[in-house]
């Protein structure tokens, strides 16, 4: 797991101490791990960790619905560029 994604996962876990772990395919929205207010803060964190500016207006729900989707949309591409 990329360091940035681990930071994102830790950020969610810190806000939900009732959870020990978050599966890669767990729906973060349906399980209320991210709500509207924390979503704005979450976007701040994602920008910081991925180094990518995010337009909230065009952000697709499915791109942050699970940790797996977050890795695919915000961290995988960066790793591939680094390895090229």
């Amino acid at each position, binding site marked *: 797991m990329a360091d940035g994604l681990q930071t994102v996962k830790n950020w969610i876990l810190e806000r939900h101490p009732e959870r020990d772990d978050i599966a890669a395919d767990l729906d973060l929205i349906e399980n209320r791990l991210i709500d*509207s*207010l924390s*979503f*704005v*803060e979450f*976007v*701040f964190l994602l920008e910081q960790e991925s180094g990518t500016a995010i337009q*909230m*207006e065009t*952000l697709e*729900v*499915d791109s942050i619905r699970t940790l797996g989707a977050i890795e695919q949309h915000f961290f995988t591409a960066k790793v591939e560029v680094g390895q090229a």
Partner: protein
Amino acid sequence: MPARPAAPPAGGLGWANLGMDIVSVNRVRRLLAQYGERFFERMLTPGELADCRTSSGLDVLSLCGRIAAKEAAFKTLRVRGRFLPWPDIVVRRSEGGWPLVELHGPAAEMAAESGITEITVSISHDVDYAVAVAAPIIAPTPSSSNS
């Protein structure tokens, strides 16, 4: 800006799909301390922020109420798979002091798809929390206006 949303005539279409939200003052205070006002510039328009400002800075309770009102208004739209379009649901303070909702862009489109012409909200707050309830005004259809 209209003075107030107009209720539908008695016997016509009524209110539906209420929205409600609650916002913790402590949570917003932490965000303000951690990120500063710029954090809320993603959620509130300059006019909304101005409505929440006092001579000593942003009033956190007003901020919480405004955020709760936006979320409550969004809930009346009953859309799935969409994030709250923060800048497109605008809650301003009217001359009378009550909050008025303006819908723009995607929020206006979502409302139109649901037959909603306007949304009315009420905000209340105490020491630790702000709450808001919102109700949509449904546009009468040709069949309902004939009945």
